[in-house]
C-alpha cells in the first residue's frame, strides 16, 4: 500500500454515554478512495464527525500523513488539510454561492481556486451571486463539494454525496468523484449507494454497530455475497 493519508487506530467515540464507535481502525492510502459502508446507524457518519473534529474521540488516534489530529478543534483540523462534504450538504444558506466558496478558501499549495471550481461546476458560476439557500439539491451538493475543494484538502471526506439526488445528478456526482480521484485526491467516502461505492472505491471498510466488520480491496468485498448480505443487507 502507498503512504497512509489518513489512519484511524483504536478509535472509541461516544455521544454522551452511548458508545457509538468501538476501537475502529482503518487506513486510507494516498491517492485512493476508501468507501466506508454499513447499515444505518453503523457509525459511518460518526467516523466522519470524529475525523473532522465535531466529535473528539474518547480513545485512539487519528493521523493525517502521520500527524496526530485527534481531539483538535475542527477549524484547526481543517487547516491541517481535511475537508468535509457533510451529509445534508449544509451550505451557508444566507451567503451567496461565491461567498460560500471564498470563505472556505485555503491555499496550501493546491490548485483549487474559485475559477477552477467554477470551471468544474459551470452551474455554480451562473448562480454565483444567488443565496445558496435558493439552489436546488443537486446544485447545493455541487456547492458543498466545491466548498470542500476550495480548502485544497489533502484528504476529502464525503458523507453521502448522492443522497436525495436525481439519478442524472448522481451520475454527475459520480463522475466528479472519479475525476478527483484521477487527479490524485485521497477520498474517504461514505455512501449508501453500494453500486456507486463499488464503482469508485479502491478499498472498502464495512462497519457494523460501531466496529469494523471487514476491510480489504474492493475486489475482495464486491464478490463476497455472504459478507454483503450479512453486513449491508442488500442484493
Amino acid at each position, binding site marked *: 500500500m502507498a503512504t497512509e493519508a489518513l489512519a484511524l487506530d483504536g478509535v472509541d467515540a461516544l455521544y454522551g454515554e452511548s458508545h457509538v464507535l468501538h476501537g475502529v481502525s482503518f487506513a486510507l492510502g494516498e491517492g485512493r478512495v476508501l468507501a466506508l459502508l454499513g447499515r444505518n446507524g453503523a457509525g459511518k457518519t460518526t467516523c466522519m464527525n470524529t475525523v473532522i473534529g465535531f466529535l473528539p474521540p474518547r480513545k485512539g488516534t487519528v493521523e493525517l500523513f502521520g500527524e496526530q489530529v485527534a481531539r483538535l478543534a475542527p*477549524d484547526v483540523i*481543517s487547516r491541517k488539510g481535511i475537508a468535509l462534504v457533510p451529509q445534508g450538504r449544509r451550505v451557508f444558506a444566507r451567503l451567496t454561492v461565491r461567498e460560500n466558496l471564498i*470563505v472556505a478558501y485555503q491555499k496550501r499549495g493546491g490548485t483549487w481556486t474559485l475559477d477552477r471550481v467554477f470551471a468544474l461546476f459551470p452551474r455554480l458560476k451562473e448562480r454565483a451571486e444567488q443565496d445558496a439557500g435558493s439552489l436546488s439539491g443537486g446544485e447545493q451538493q455541487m456547492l458543498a463539494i466545491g466548498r470542500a475543494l476550495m*480548502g485544497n484538502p489533502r484528504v476529502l471526506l464525503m458523507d453521502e454525496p448522492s443522497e436525495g439526488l436525481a439519478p442524472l445528478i448522481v451520475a454527475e456526482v459520480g463522475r466528479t468523484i472519479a475525476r478527483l480521484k484521477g487527479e490524485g485526491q485521497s477520498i474517504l467516502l461514505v455512501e449508501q449507494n453500494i453500486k456507486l461505492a463499488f464503482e469508485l472505491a479502491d478499498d472498502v471498510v464495512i462497519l457494523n454497530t460501531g466496529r469494523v466488520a471487514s476491510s480489504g480491496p474492493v475486489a475482495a468485498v464486491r464478490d463476497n455475497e455472504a459478507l454483503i448480505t450479512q453486513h449491508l443487507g442488500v442484493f
Partner: protein
Amino acid sequence: MRIANLTHGSLFMLGAYLGVTVMRQWPNLWLAALAAGIAVALFGGLLERLILRQLGGNVLGQVLVTLGVSFIIADACLITWGGDPIPIPTPPALQMPVRIAGFIFPAYRLAVVVIAVVVALALYLLMERTRLGAMIRAGVDDPDMASAVGIPVSRLFSTVFCLGAALAGAGGVIGGPIMSAYPGLDADMLPLALIVVILGGVGSLLGAFVGAFITGFVYTFGVALLPDLAYVILFLPMILVIAFRPRGLFGKFAA
C-alpha cells in the same frame, strides 16, 4: 454569537466615563473616543472570554450574567467617578448652532448624525462586502460547518464582540457632549438599544439601521405632537412589530 448582551448600556456609560478621564489629560474628543473604544473593547473581550463563553448557548444565563455585570459596572463607575454628572465638552469647532432652511441645529448633533451614517455604512460594507464579513455570517449561520471549512469561529466571535463593545464605548464618548456621563446613563441607553434591535430584527444590520430610524423619528415627533404619550410612544412601534411580525422587520430569528 447570538448573545443576549445586556451590558451594552453599561459599556456605553463606561466609555463615556473613560472618555471623561482621557479628556482631562488630552482634551480631544476624537482621541478620547478612540481610547475609550479600545479600552472598552478589551473589557468586552475579557467579559466574552471569561464569562459569556462559559455559558455556551444558555440564553437565560447570559441575560442574568450580563445584567449582573451591568450592575457591577454601574457601581464601579459610581465609586470611581462619583455620583455627579460630568460634562464632556463639545469640540470647539462644533459648538455653534447652524441654521439650515430656517431651522436651528446644533452643529455637533449634525456631526454625530454624519458619524453614525459613516459607521453604519462601514459596518455594512464590512459585513456584506468582505471575506471577513462573509466568514462572520457563515459562523452565525452554521458555526460547526464554518469551523469545518477552517474558519476560526470562536476567535472571530470574540473579535466581533470586542468590536461591538468598542462601538458602544466610543459611542459613549461621542454621545457625551449631548448626554454627559452620569450614573443611570446605562439604564437610559439600554432600552433604546433593545427597542431598536427588537424593532429591526435580531441579527440584521439593516434592521438595526431602520429600527434606529423609526425609533428616533417616532420618539421625536411623538413627543412633540402627543406629549402626554411620551412614555409609551417609544414602545408603540415595538409592540406593533412584535404583535404582527415577531422576528422584527428584518429579523432572522424570533426576538
